[in-house]
């Protein structure tokens, strides 16, 4: 198992290397002078010079790449062209809201969706099953901003239970953090509950038809034992996949939700950077996103191996 883990981590390095190279070349291989692209049309020669020196554009390409990677490894992601703030600082400020929302959405969704999916599969074909499936269709089809505004209207404006929008760091007290994160969490959870419940139901339905489930029943085990001990673990692999990719999507930013609830997350940071052509920030976001995907894939594969002894490692 440890060997497998090490091998998988080693295998992730070339992937990240290719991503880094791509990100590096993104700027360098764009036609024209990168400094001019960065500075925009109305740049003065002094500004262009400053950018050239800053990016080391006067040196050979490979030297530029290695010194860029070297700086990356030391946490130097460059400086924003717009705000002149170090990129690392910008991203790390934005990471907490995104990570908080992602974690709480996943937690809530799993807690709600997995039991729903299990029950729907268990009561396959009954009104319970149809109810869960209908819920899931609604979750898929209503856009997240609609749910968001409805939630804000009811709980923030009418009932005044929670603030309308914004974010407060968890390090400044759990109460203020919680009351600001709860609405975006609920709004985003709809679609993830729909997705995970559907997946759980389908996987459980498959597994409940298996011979070993019949064997378990023939042993006289009660239904909860059959469902949880025998069926769920076998149904877990596809569900884990959905949860993992869902989580990665959440971390790399959910622009609409962030906008509705005025959350200072990485999604909006990315969009702003793209619109402003703030290349260092864009580069950092691409690296962050790929890093998240690589890590989550690794975690999913490890979970497979832990859940199913037939998967060899």
């Amino acid at each position: 198992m440890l060997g497998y883990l090490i091998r998988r981590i080693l295998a992730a390095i070339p992937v990240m290397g290719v991503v880094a190279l791509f990100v590096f070349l993104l700027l360098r291989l764009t036609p024209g002078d990168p400094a001019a692209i960065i500075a925009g049309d109305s740049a003065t020669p002094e500004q262009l010079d400053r950018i050239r020196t800053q990016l080391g554009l006067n040196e050979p390409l490979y030297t530029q790449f290695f010194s860029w990677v070297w700086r990356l490894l030391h946490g130097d992601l460059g400086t924003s062209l717009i705000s002149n703030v170090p990129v690392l600082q910008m991203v790390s400020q934005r990471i907490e809201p995104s990570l908080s929302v992602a974690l709480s959405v996943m937690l809530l969704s799993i807690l709600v969706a997995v039991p729903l999916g299990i029950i729907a599969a268990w009561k396959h074909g009954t009104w319970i099953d149809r109810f869960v499936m209908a819920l899931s269709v609604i979750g898929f089809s209503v856009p997240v901003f609609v749910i968001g505004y409805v939630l804000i209207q009811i709980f923030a404006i009418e009932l005044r239970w929670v603030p309308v929008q914004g974010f407060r760091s968890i390090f400044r007290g759990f109460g203020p953090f919680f009351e600001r994160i709860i609405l975006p969490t609920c709004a985003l959870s709809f679609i993830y509950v729909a997705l995970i419940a559907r997946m759980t139901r389908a996987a459980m339905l498959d597994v409940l038809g298996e011979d070993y489930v019949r064997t378990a029943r023939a042993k006289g085990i009660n239904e909860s034992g059959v469902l949880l001990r025998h069926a769920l673990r076998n149904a877990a692999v596809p569900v884990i996949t959905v949860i993992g990719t869902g989580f990665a999507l959440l971390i790399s930013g959910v622009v609409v939700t962030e906008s509705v609830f005025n959350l200072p997350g990485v999604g909006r940071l990315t969009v702003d950077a793209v619109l402003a052509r703030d290349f260092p920030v864009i580069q950092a976001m691409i690296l962050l996103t790929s890093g998240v995907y690589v890590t989550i894939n690794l975690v999913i594969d490890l979970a497979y191996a832990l859940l199913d002894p037939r998967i060899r490692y």
Partner: protein
Amino acid sequence: MSDAVNSNINRTDVNTRPMVLEIDNLVVGVGKTGAGKKIIDGISLQVRQGETVCVVGESGSGKSVTSLSTMGLLPKDSLKAIGGSIKLVGEDVLKASDRRLRQLRATTMAMIFQEPMTALNPVVHVGKQIDEVLRTHTSLGASARRARILEMMEQVRLPDVKRIFASYPHRLSGGQRQRIMIAMALVLEPKLLIADEPTTALDVTTQKQILTLIRDLQKDHGTAVLFITHDMGVVADIADRVAVMRQGRLVETGTLQNILRAPTMDYTRNLLSAVPSLVPRPPRVEAGFNPVVLEANELGKVYRERSFFGKPREVHAAQDVTLTLRKGRTLGIVGESGSGKSTVARCIVRLIDPTSGGIRLAGREISDLSRHTLQPHRKKIQIVFQDPYRSLNPRITIGESIAEGPINYGAKRSVAMARARELLELVDLPADAVSRYPHQFSGGQRQRIAIARALALEPEVLVADEAVSALDVSVQAQVLRLLDDIQTRLGIAILFITHDLRVAAQICDDVAVMQHGRVVEQGPAAEVLANPQQAYTRQLLDAAPGRGWDFANFRAVDGSTTVPAA
């Protein structure tokens, strides 16, 4: 070998024993309320303590539904018992609550299933799966439970029980898994054991061991056994009494001797007559000297499993296999699972590439041809697969399926479709079947379609890879007759892969016996199967169930040898 036949318990003794299972006029209907078609229509059966009752019948006869009804395991939303009673030691299980049923399972009645490969939970250690039975139904402590499980695992003759206790199912062989299932079923010494085709998925030698095991455990524990099977050979070896089922009804019941020697109903007689004899058919005269159409020369296939560290593991799936097949003849490759018989067939058809050796098809070496240069030669050799339910594309009409090959080889569509109609008639199906889809046909009909599809390219060699193994005996007999008939008419050569020595004895001119990827014995079927020279061939023949019986003639085989009638 005849001890199995003679070991049937004395009847008068059995008749005084307490009744364990009494099924009375059971009716099971389709649908949630059971209001639909009656799958089981008035079945009555009794099993006494220490007795083995075999329920035989072809697919769809309702034998499995009967056993699942007894266990209370009918799928709730599709089948329901709507009449009669099933008394287990006097208690009607049809009236029992879910809770009571759960209490009865494993303690009073237990069941083992057909597929040991899928009947165990793949992600839980097998020891723990047996332990679950004890945890659910007893208040034994952990160490007492473990001791009991290890003892039971030894009783079912598993080796190295401590290691197996902590193994996952995929680490065990099919036979070992079935032993685990038996241990799990019998650990609480239930009064009734229901065995639903428990050896059907196993090789004959393993089957023999498992049947002996069930019989021995039954003797020790006095268990009543309800044994579901389609295999008359197995019935002959283990039954005290036999119940023959057909389409949800009981055709006849009686003692083993009565049923096998003097069946009163036509259906039973037909069922017995369809069982192919182990005695090879008389050799066919070879008309002239037929040309060789297929030759395999020291054929070998090695699977290499790469590993990240260390050297790759090599598996020799086939080694030094040399075969010769002449026009108009049938060569059988027989062997147990993993013997390499299907690997050889697939190499010969070039569905997989052989690692070494040569294949000559109609005088042309094809083993080293590339996919592209092989194309013109592919039509000369065609294959029919085992499972007719999965080998036809469900979304394509029968006609398209059959015509697809010829069209690929440049035939005009109209010509190919007309030919498809002719072929369907050749395999005894109506020509208008061309416009229908596979799901509208039974298993036997689908296999005929698969044969028609293979014949559409007018091959010189037809490879039948376990082509009749998934079929009921009566259908099997029809398909075998059809193959024979086609061979006589078209002079095609057939390479027949089978695990079933009875089938091989009835269709093959020559036989090659394979074990561990090698041919251990080869020669005319009449010689190899009647007078085997190799220990392994003898072992296979010994393990064939019911070899003491000549089913078709309703009599026991005299003496200990099976001398061909010719």
